């Protein structure tokens, strides 16, 4: 368990205790809200996790590596950004993966694009985002984030 998870759990527990001592009824109401929201999203989260599990089993990191083999920096940047868009890997796994790709010859710029789209643009998570915020919001946010990821990585290419 990492430090943010522990911090979050401590925060949740202390909030609960504080809330209970102040107003029991309000707290129960809050927990009911939490329960309803959780119920509303549980099936989707499990489905998405199962899809990610399937995807990473069928397309192991080795395959991603070979695709990014010998292409130009710009081309590799777009391919990496696209890969980052359709996959959803925890960031803790993404950095070691990106670093191993750099060792095998991938350009830093394309890895910046990969990391940025990976975390910010979500193709697999789009259905959940639509449920919460609607189609137009999801489309605009993801397209803008994709473009930003390309610009960020190309900008980094100029400096690094």
């Amino acid at each position, binding site marked *: 368990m990492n430090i943010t998870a522990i911090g979050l759990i401590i925060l949740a527990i202390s909030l609960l205790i504080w809330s209970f001592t102040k107003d029991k009824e309000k707290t129960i109401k809050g927990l009911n809200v939490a*329960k309803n929201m959780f119920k509303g999203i549980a099936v989707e989260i499990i489905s998405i996790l199962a899809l990610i599990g399937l995807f990473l089993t069928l397309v192991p990191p080795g395959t991603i590596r070979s695709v990014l083999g010998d292409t130009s920096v710009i081309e590799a940047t777009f391919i990496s950004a696209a890969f980052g868009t359709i996959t959803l890997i925890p960031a803790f796994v993404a950095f070691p993966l990106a670093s191993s790709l750099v060792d095998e010859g991938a350009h830093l710029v394309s890895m910046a694009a990969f990391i940025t789209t990976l975390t910010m643009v979500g193709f697999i998570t789009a259905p959940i985002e639509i449920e919460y915020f609607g189609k137009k919001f999801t489309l605009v946010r993801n397209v803008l984030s994709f473009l930003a990821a390309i610009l960020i990585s190309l900008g980094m290419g100029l400096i690094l």
Partner: protein
Amino acid sequence: MKFRLETIVKFFKDNKIAAFTIFAYVVVFVYSPNLGIDSLKMTASYFLEMLEILPAVFIVMGMVEVWVSRETIMGIFGKGSGIKGRFASVLIGSFSAGPIYAAFPVCFTLLKKGSSVSNIVIILSAWAVVKAPMLIVETQFMGLSFMLVRYIFTVPAIIMIGIITGKIISKEYVIKNSSKDGLLVERIDELLPGHNCGACGYGSCRETAEQIADGDEEPDVCVPLEEEKTIRELLETCS
């Protein structure tokens, strides 16, 4: 609820992703059971990782929902909160745990409570890419200069994304198009008589409220109901 074929069909209609996922797994299992088992194992490890943080995320949201007033949120993240609101959004995002889909419900709660659309987008993006605890991991694997330069570019970029999205999408649109509202059940439950009389066919008023909120039952299923009009108005504003 009767468990018949219709119930199953309805479940899949309501949960298209689940239907697709199950279908994909069936195909993979038929093709190669070993691949299927490996995928399930990988899924299980992600699931456990999620279980570490999700209950806490939802509890924090529930507490925010009942304790933090609309005015407070509007002051910090609302329209006109200016540059302070932008940086507050970056900060709150970067100190949160979990992947981006854990951020959706939190941001939705903040939005209902008065945050602006642009600041929601900033929180979402910061939540995804500007992770304070990940700084160390990123530096360790990619080097200090890579990390620093990426952050110097990313923070202004996500603020821009937020501002542009806020210009294109109105808050009314988001509220209208959202199909997630944990509060809806609460509000309907409050309006039902609360005798748990069972005349509607459900065991408790709470169950009935859940059915009405999901749109599976009409409010008039409740026999002694007096607040039918209010519930209908509520459903209309939330759907």
